[in-house]
């Protein structure tokens, strides 16, 4: 057994009446990559704050390298969830500041700065201000800053939230190589695909460790198998599986754009009969494959044991659903120039009523710019836009009432309560007075915030704020819905909830255009488009996009290959 470098015994932290950690025990060995997962507000950030020595626990003890976390600060690099470097300092100046605070000798500083900037692939940007960096590059800089004092322990709090898959790969490549140099790494992440790469994982729930082990151990302990069903008619297949009932060992069903995942008890012979059952229901199945459960399955199943799943509450419609089909959003030759910089170049796209269309791409590829031009928030340089049958007066109040928009940054007022925010947006979007109470109650119920209407938004964890923001953007029953990274930083269970809601809106005829960094989420979309360097470089169903790249096994692989190809062509 290698040496224990981080230990926590009965760690407790309370913020006033709220207990963020209630007796956490942890033991992390040298050279380990240790993942912290859990729903929003489970206490991941609090645990890392304590280990980094920036927060005093209210009970229990934590030791880092045999010392109190405060005394061990020189040997610990911390990358907090919120970017904690200076937007108005350059990359080099930020690194020099951190190196100065941590007493790194001048000669070593120069050498390390060069090494780490090169390692992260941002050595060309030393003179650039941090505010001019993309989200992914900012996080890379933050990692360099955490490494510049040559720490023995690295604490990373959601380092890849808002980071595109390409940068995320770079990140993990570096993390893996650091662990091989016997650096110990504790990382909190809402992304369970990432958590699969950790040596061991702790699942935190409500301030306590509920599962602990290697990803393989945790998956095996579940006692379930996962069946991947590929079919063209997902909705029919899902309905058919649901009709089979619970008695057959079905634990969970989750739909992705062109795939249905069914969790069944291990050893059940269900897959052999499932094909027949589906055929009998008239669903054409392309393939059924048996696979092990993912960490996401572990997460979801564990949380289901611990708390009732937030109920799926149907949206209280005041208008009949719109028939599916017909062009809702159309862009032709869309161009946006910022000075000499072309952010979006000759983009065409079409979204029909009832369709979920995903816009994917690396940080800075032009996704947000596109979405802002489409909903009329940003004037376009060239091209035409058609929204709901209208090509002119895209900012007219009548049209705006048919559009819902959730921006990447929080649009809620942090100093107002949840209810005050919702009241405000209901007013702004002209939700009829008589219906406001019902709609607001729906937002609270569907986001699991019943009884928290009077909580100030600023004190909610990020994931919950996103849910409220989503509710605020759909209360007026928009026919065209624009969602810009709606689930960034939201935990997996809440994310599923999110997508079920979005899907429900699509089924009721809403045209949905959504951007995301999570490839597993993109699977929910009927069609996706990939953007790189201002261009659309691929389009189709998720399966078509994967199939278009030889050798790609997942959308993630396809994304990286396509973006790299586009990058080399541009260079």
């Amino acid at each position, binding site marked *: 057994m290698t040496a224990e470098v981080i230990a926590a015994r009965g760690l407790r932290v309370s913020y006033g009446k709220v207990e963020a950690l209630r007796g956490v025990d942890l033991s992390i060995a040298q050279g380990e990559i240790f993942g912290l997962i859990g729903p929003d507000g489970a206490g991941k950030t609090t645990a890392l704050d304590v280990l980094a020595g920036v927060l*005093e626990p209210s009970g229990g003890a934590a030791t880092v390298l045999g010392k109190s976390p405060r005394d061990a600060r020189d040997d610990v690099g911390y990358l907090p969830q919120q970017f904690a470097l200076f937007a108005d300092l350059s990359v080099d100046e930020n690194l020099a500041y951190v190196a100065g605070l941590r007493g790194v000798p001048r000669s070593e500083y120069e050498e390390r700065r060069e090494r780490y900037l090169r390692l992260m692939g941002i050595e060309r940007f030393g003179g650039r201000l941090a505010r001019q960096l993309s989200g992914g590059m900012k996080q890379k800089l933050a990692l360099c800053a955490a490494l510049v004092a040559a720490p023995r322990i690295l604490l990373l709090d959601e380092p890849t939230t808002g980071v595109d898959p390409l940068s995320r790969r770079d990140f993990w490549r570096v993390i893996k190589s650091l662990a091989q140099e016997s650096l110990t790494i504790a990382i909190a992440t809402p992304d369970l695909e990432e958590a699969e790469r950790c040596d061991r994982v702790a699942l935190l729930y409500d301030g306590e460790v509920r599962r602990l082990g290697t990803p393989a151990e945790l998956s095996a302990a579940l006692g379930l198998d996962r069946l991947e069903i590929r079919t063209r008619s997902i909705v029919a297949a899902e309905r058919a599986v649901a009709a089979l009932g619970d008695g057959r060992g079905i634990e969970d069903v989750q739909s992705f754009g062109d795939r249905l995942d069914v969790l069944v008890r291990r050893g059940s012979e269900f897959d052999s009969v499932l094909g027949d059952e589906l055929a009998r229901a008239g669903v054409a199945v392309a393939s059924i494959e048996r696979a092990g459960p993912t960490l996401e399955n572990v997460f979801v199943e564990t949380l289901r044991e611990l708390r009732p799943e937030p109920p799926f509450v149907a949206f209280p419609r005041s208008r009949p659903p719109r028939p599916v089909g017909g062009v809702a959003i159309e862009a032709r030759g869309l161009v946006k120039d910022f000075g000499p910089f072309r952010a979006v170049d000759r983009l065409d796209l079409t979204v029909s009523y009832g369709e979920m269309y995903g816009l994917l791409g690396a940080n800075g590829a032009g996704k947000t710019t596109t979405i802002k031009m489409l909903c009329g928030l940003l004037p376009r340089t060239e091209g035409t836009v058609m929204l709901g049958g209208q090509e002119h007066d895209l900012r007219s109040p009548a049209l705006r009432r048919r559009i819902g928009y959730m921006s990447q940054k929080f649009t809620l007022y942090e100093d107002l309560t949840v209810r005050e925010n919702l009241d405000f947006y209901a007013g702004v979007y002209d939700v009829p007075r008589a219906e406001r109470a019902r709609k607001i109650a729906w937002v609270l119920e569907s986001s699991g915030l019943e009884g928290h209407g009077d909580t100030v938004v600023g004190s909610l964890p990020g994931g919950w704020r996103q849910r409220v923001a989503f509710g605020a953007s759909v209360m007026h029953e928009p026919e065209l819905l624009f969602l810009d990274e709606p689930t960034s930083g939201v935990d997996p269970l809440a994310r599923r909830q999110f997508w079920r809601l979005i899907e429900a809106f699509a089924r009721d005829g809403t045209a949905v255009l959504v951007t995301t960094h999570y490839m597993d989420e993109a699977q929910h979309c009927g069609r996706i488009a990939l953007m790189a360097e201002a261009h659309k470089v691929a389009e189709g169903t998720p399966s078509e996009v994967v199939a278009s790249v030889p050798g790609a096994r997942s959308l993630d692989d396809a994304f990286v290959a396509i973006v790299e190809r586009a990058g080399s062509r541009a260079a």
Partner: protein
Amino acid sequence: MNPGRVWTQARKEWTLFRRDRLTVALAFVLPLATLLIFGLAIRLEAKNVAVAVQDLDRTPFSRAYVAGLGESITFAVVRPSADPLAALHAGRAKASVVIPPGTERLLRRGYDAPIGVYIDGTDVVNAELIRNGLEGLAAASVPGRRPPVSADVRVWFNPGRKESLFIVTGVIAIVLGVFPPLLSAIAMVRDKEEGTIVTAYASRLTAAEFIAGKALAYLGVATAEWCAVVAVAMLVWRLGFAGDPTPLLVTTPFYLLAAIMLGLFVGSRVSTQAAAVQGVGPVNAMLTILLSGFMYPVSNIPWPLSLISYVVPAHYYIEVTRDAYVRGTGWPGVWYAPLALAALILLFFAGAWQSMRRMQLSR
């Protein structure tokens, strides 16, 4: 205290300050604008006060009296109305003088001759000045009737009684007591508001080093402001040293540091820039202008408000600037100022340190 870490912190603050062009511009434009506005606009002595004179006597004496009024710097004669009060009501005059018929005759016979005067008392200070001025003029216009005892006055220091000397020396202190703390308070609270302070918390930087680093950077900024303000004052008002400049040169760094530390103290106690700006902006400016002895002596301020004036740094510095540019007495008159300011620096530093000392997030 580790000097390397203090220096790192100071250099970072300085770089951030320099990078924000607008803040840099405002750091110089606002103090200079304030200096010019205060220096040029504030006039404590009344000049050209409109006086409506109704001469019902129409004699050589009364005409000489009216002419005397018109010649004085203080008064300007305006056309009278039939009703002496009408001019006051209409706001045409601040005082109305009625010379009754037979005034000269009464005087010639050796009697007292009352002249009617109505004064607008809205502006208390000026009403008193007008009254003194009019009484003085009346006494002077009858030769040979001097009171038996008179004061032979000679004005010591500022013999020309130039108002600008009094005002400008005060404004220099006010400006340096108002603007630097605003900058330092914002610098302090911004780190907390933007979450960048976690980077400092995660290192071994102590609260004392953190505060000292910020203070050092802004001492540089404030010194530059001081140079600019004094240079403009010397150019515009021909301000020059009346005596030994040493007390001023020694006390100035203490004063600037006290002002900066006040800002850091407030910044450490609040959590938003909005709160910091309100605390160090209007509140500090008001206290500095009203309770520092800038316009009226501190001894006039009633207890317990007078106690506040002891923690207003400008209170001590104004004594030093006025001494340096007007009185020229030197150390004997102002020896206590650097000591008092040093005490304030320690007080504010302790206050800031008290709330930062853990260098941790608060639960």
